[in-house]
Structure formats: structure tokens, C-alpha cells
């Protein structure tokens, strides 16, 4: 029988099949953990006297609570609170006790969990990957079955390397046609979410397909899969191909030599069979997508940046419009920007930083605008500095920081002030997500950078050449 990528990934990891009474027991190939959602899981192991079953399949990093400013004169990192620092030390202690590899604060490989997994090639096609973080869908870009879990499940995986799971339904979202120049993966994601809704993918594992997806770089595919959860889908994935293999080859944890050839041969079997059936099929017109922003407090409230704010159609939309202070029928470009954040597991990779730098090069951040640029990992920070991007940002008047989740989740002290309008390359525009009372506008890196320069929400095309992005 013809099987989809998702069917193949699922079938290969069933330890005990699903029955009417019980979910399947699935084996997990890679468990990523971080400081925020793991302490209570380790506490459960402690209570029950259980060891970590497979520390060799567990990778820890520090990203959510960590400062992005360097240590002060006393050599201490400027943690937002004592609790934040305690949480970091708790993960260090838990990893030491259980023999888990931790990308610690001094590790040149440290970074955001969904950035470093792929960078180290821990993320590979065919794997099951879980993490106590909803943006684990990012790893699906490699043809992995990757999804976010809660802390109780983190405990289950630590103790058994397995998880209880009912097989979700399957959805294929096909992007037909080619992207226009200056349109990127973030715009695809926002357009897709606007089309199907913030709960349109609920209960589904999504495969992104079509020529516009095949043409994307791995970094762009990660951006797209990252946002699957914003459409309600825990899983977003792309079939592995030569682009995938070229990204992984030679990286730290990629198979080497003959093992590499054997792995690639296996991975080539993963893409969905021609006649594979999906429970739901969605088509998105890629050629019609324009640079997008969000104007509400849910990621599906998205529209082209060159447009006008729509009229609210119900109470929820009216409340969102009041919070965001967008006047109906007025151009988005009239909205003054206070702060810009370029970073997060959605858009903090080299391609994103180069895109932002292209806009900012030789220009100045508008008066009164604070622009924060936070690389996704130490490796990215070093590469960007080797390319001189930090100088481009500094000369433009933007702040260049240490890697971490930073203003995406705003729990490390990086945040906006009440009432501020923040154009952000992160993934959530929820009320107060980036600080109490902060109004978040989601966008791609070029749009965010353009808005920093213009001082108001801005179409990036005026600052960019006409070369297509995300094609490399």
C-alpha cells in the first residue's frame, strides 16, 4: 500500500501498536531538553527512583532563560531573576547527574534548541524527535517526525525513551507555482496560516510539498515547519532530498564514510509514495504570496504588508484591533514602530541575518527605534561576525546580542515596554507575549529590518534588489 512520509516515519517507530484501549508506544530517536520544561520531569524520576534510560539519545541546551548580554564587570551573567539563574543551574546539575551532554554556557555549540539540533546534524531524516517545546516541528524540515510535548511526557521519554501517542490524521499542504522575488518562507508560513486558520491543522501531521517548497533552502524549510504549530499542527515536515543531504553532510553528528552513503540510501526511501493518501489536502498559491505581516493577536491575522488594516468582523477581532491599535482601512505603513526583534527559532539563522543585513547595510535605524538582533546559536554568531554582519548591524545602530530565545518568549529580561509596537521575526503575536501590553507584529527578516530603518511598518522591496531569496 502506498504510504506517506509520515506513515513511514510512524511505522518505523512503533514499539507497541495502537489499540482501541491504548495509544501506540513510539520509540524516540532524539530527545532535546532545555532548562524551562525539564526540571519537573527530572523531579519525577527522582521521586520514582528511575534512571534516564538513554542519555546517549538525549541532548540538552540552554536557551530560554539565558541572558543575551555578555557578563558584567564582575564576570557574572545578567540574569533577569534569581529564579532564571537557578533554573539554568538546575539543568546543569540534572545533566551532570544523569550523564546527559549539555551545550553549556561556555560551549561554542550552544544555541536555541531548534537551531543547534540541525547544526550538529543530531536532527536527521527518518528520526523521531521530541522536545518540551511546541516549535519542535522545526526539525520536520529534514523529513523527521518531530513534535512538542509536555513536561509529563518529557519524564516518560527520559525514563523509557518512549512516548504514548495516537496516530494523528495527515494533511498535505501543497504550495503551487513559484514564489515571487523578495518573498520568503516566513511569508509562506503566514499566508498558509491565514488561509487555514490558527486551528486549521489541529489533529493533523502536516507535510509541506510542491515546487515552491522543494526550491527552499534548509533554513527556509525550517522556518516553514517551525510555524506549523501556529496553524495548530504539532507536526510539519518536508520530504528529504539532495538539499537536505547537502546541508547535513560533514556536520558533527552526521554519519561518515560508508555509513553516510548507507544513510542517504535509506533516506531516499522516505518521501511519500506517489499514490499516498492524505486525510486532508490543501493548496496554497505560492505565486500570489506577498511579504506578510500580522495585524492581530493570533498568527492567522496576517495580510500583505502593503495592505490596509481590515475591519473587525466579530468581538474577538474587535478586541484584537483595539489592543493592536490598527485603524480599519488605514495602511499598515502608517503604524509607527518602537522596537524590532530579529531572532528566534523561526528566523535567527545565517540566511535570515544576511537578509536583514542586506536591508540595513549603509542605512540607519530610525530615531527612537530599538533594534535587537539575536543569532540562533554561537556558531551562527561566529559565522555572522566572520562575514562582518555584526558591523553592518552596529553601524546601522542595531544591537548585536549573544544567542538565545530572547524577545520571542521574553523570559530572560529582553522585552518590550507596555504599549510598544514591536515588529518581530518570531512566531507568536499573542497579547503580552513580548512583555506586558506589548503589541507584536510578526514578519520576515527583511520586513522587520525595513521597518527598523523606516521607523514604521515597511515593505522591504524598496530596500532590496530583485533577486529571489531562499533559492540558494
Amino acid at each position: 500500500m502506498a504510504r506517506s512520509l509520515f506513515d513511514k516515519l510512524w511505522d518505523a517507530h512503533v514499539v507497541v501498536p495502537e489499540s482501541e484501549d491504548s495509544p501506540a508506544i513510539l520509540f524516540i530517536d532524539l530527545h532535546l531538553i532545555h532548562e524551562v520544561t525539564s526540571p519537573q520531569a527530572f523531579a519525577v524520576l527522582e521521586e520514582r527512583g528511575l534512571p534516564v534510560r538513554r542519555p546517549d539519545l538525549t541532548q540538552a541546551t540552554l536557551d530560554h532563560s539565558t541572558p543575551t548580554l555578555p557578563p558584567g564587570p564582575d564576570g557574572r551573567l545578567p540574569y533577569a531573576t534569581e529564579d532564571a539563574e537557578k533554573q539554568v543551574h538546575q539543568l546543569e546539575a540534572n545533566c551532570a547527574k544523569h550523564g546527559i551532554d549539555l551545550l553549556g554556557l561556555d560551549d561554542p555549540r550552544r544555541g536555541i534548541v531548534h537551531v543547534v539540533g540541525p547544526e550538529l546534524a543530531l536532527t536527521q531524516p527518518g528520526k523521531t524527535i521530541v522536545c518540551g517545546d511546541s516549535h519542535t516541528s522545526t526539525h520536520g524540515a529534514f523529513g523527521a517526525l518531530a513534535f512538542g510535548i509536555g513536561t509529563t511526557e518529557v519524564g516518560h521519554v527520559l525514563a523509557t525513551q518512549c512516548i504514548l501517542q495516537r496516530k494523528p490524521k495527515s494533511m498535505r499542504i501543497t504550495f503551487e507555482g513559484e514564489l515571487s522575488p523578495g518573498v520568503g518562507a516566513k511569508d509562506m508560513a503566514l499566508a498558509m496560516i491565514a488561509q487555514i486558520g490558527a486551528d486549521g491543522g489541529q489533529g493533523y501531521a502536516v507535510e509541506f510539498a510542491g515546487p515552491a517548497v522543494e526550491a527552499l533552502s534548509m533554513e527556509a524549510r525550517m522556518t516553514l515547519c517551525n510555524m506549523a504549530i501556529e496553524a495548530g499542527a504539532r507536526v510539519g515536515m518536508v520530504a528529504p532530498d539532495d538539499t537536505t543531504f547537502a546541508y547535513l553532510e560533514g556536520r558533527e553528528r552526521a554519519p561518515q564514510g560508508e555509513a553516510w552513503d548507507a544513510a542517504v540510501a535509506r533516506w531516499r526511501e522516505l518521501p511519500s509514495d506517489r499514490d499516498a493518501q492524505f486525510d486532508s489536502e490543501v493548496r496554497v498559491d505560492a505565486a500570489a504570496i506577498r511579504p506578510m505581516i500580522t495585524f492581530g493577536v493570533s498568527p492567522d491575522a496576517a495580510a500583505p504588508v502593503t495592505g490596509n488594516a481590515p475591519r473587525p468582523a466579530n468581538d474577538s477581532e474587535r478586541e484584537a484591533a483595539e489592543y493592536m491599535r490598527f485603524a480599519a482601512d488605514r495602511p499598515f505603513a502608517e503604524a509607527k514602530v518602537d522596537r524590532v526583534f530579529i531572532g528566534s527559532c523561526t528566523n535567527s539563522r545565517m540566511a535570515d541575518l544576511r537578509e536583514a543585513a542586506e536591508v540595513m547595510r549603509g542605512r540607519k535605524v530610525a530615531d527612537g527605534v530599538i533594534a535587537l538582533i539575536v543569532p540562533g546559536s554561537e556558531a551562527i554568531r561566529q559565522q555572522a561576525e566572520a562575514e562582518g554582519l555584526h558591523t553592518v548591524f552596529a553601524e546601522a545602530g542595531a544591537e548585536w546580542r549573544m544567542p538565545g530565545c530572547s524577545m520571542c518568549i521574553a523570559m530572560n529580561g529582553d522585552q518590550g515596554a507596555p504599549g510598544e509596537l514591536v515588529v518581530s521575526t518570531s512566531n507568536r503575536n499573542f497579547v503580552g507575549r513580548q512583555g506586558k501590553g506589548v503589541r507584536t507584529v510578526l514578519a520576515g527578516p527583511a520586513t522587520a529590518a525595513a521597518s527598523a530603518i523606516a521607523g514604521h511598518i515597511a515593505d522591504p522591496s524598496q530596500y532590496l534588489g530583485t533577486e529571489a531569496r531562499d533559492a540558494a
Partner: protein
Amino acid sequence: MQPEPFNRLEARTLVVRQSNIDTDQIIPARFLTTTTREGLGKSAFYDWRYTEDDQPKNASPFPVAGAGDRQVLVAGANFGCGSSREHAPWALLDYGFRAVISSDIADIFKSNALKNGLLPVEVDQRTHAALLERPGIRIVIDLESCTLETEDDIRAQFTVEPFARRCLLDGVDPLGHIVAHEEAIAAYEAAAA
């Protein structure tokens, strides 16, 4: 840690009509630096309950003191979307809720809620609309029969994933269930090696 068994709940409802109530609303991220799961009720819907300078808001739908006898939260569609933080059900339980009713509840939140004894109840659109119109109404939710009934005779059936239901009704331990399949796990590992 095993949740309290859940069988039958008789309580009043607390209604918030907004759709897409995300887990950042349920508990803002700045409260996630905790390393325990206790005492999060004070942070539940914090920015809905308190002003920017931490004063109680008069107009909040959420009482400062906790849910009291309004143990059933009725909310708009797509409740619990966003982050996977299990702190969300921990906070709602500690605040005093035992069940959440909506027309659809986000996948990860639903899974987290079930593991902690906070019953997520998804009902049809008509029942949902009727419940949204009747804040404070008395309601009985019966997990054994998977039915709910209000004092003015709104009746509805709902479904709960059978294993999670058994865990809640009979105190079955999900981790124990996985551990009991040790042989199969070891065999899978041996075959994969």
C-alpha cells in the same frame, strides 16, 4: 505524580468568550522560571487579573481569590493554543478549575491537561454557543458516561481518548503502562542497534 481521580464533577461555569486563548494568557512566560509545579494558581491568567503595576483589575472575569465553585471554565474556540508549557494546566488546576469546555481545544494543551486531571471537554457548536450564553450556570460533567448536563437541560455527549479516560477514572499510571512494556522496548532497541 498521579492526578486526583476524576469521575463526576458538579460545579458552576466561568465563561470567557474569546477564541484562541493561548497558553501565554493562561500563564505568562515570565512565571516559567519555576522548577516546581506547585503554587502556579496565583499566576493563572495573571495579566487578565492584574494591572501592569500588579493591582487587581475590577473588570476581570477571574476572581482574585480563585475559581471557587466555578470549577468549569467555558472558553471560545481553539483554547490552549501556542506553547507546550504544562504550566498552563498546572496553573488552572491550582487556581481551582477541574474542567475546560470549548468547541475545540489545542492538541498539546489537551494532552497536558488530561495527564494532570484537568478534564478537556470538546462539545458541538450548538452546545458551545449555549454554554457561552449562560455564565455561572450549574453543570454536571460525568466522565464515566461522557455526558454533561446543565440545570436548564442543556445535554451533550463528548469523547475522551479511551486510555486517558481510564487513567482518570481508575488511576492508571501512564508511565507505569510504558514501563510494563520493557521487553518490547528492549527488543526494539536491539533491532535498531
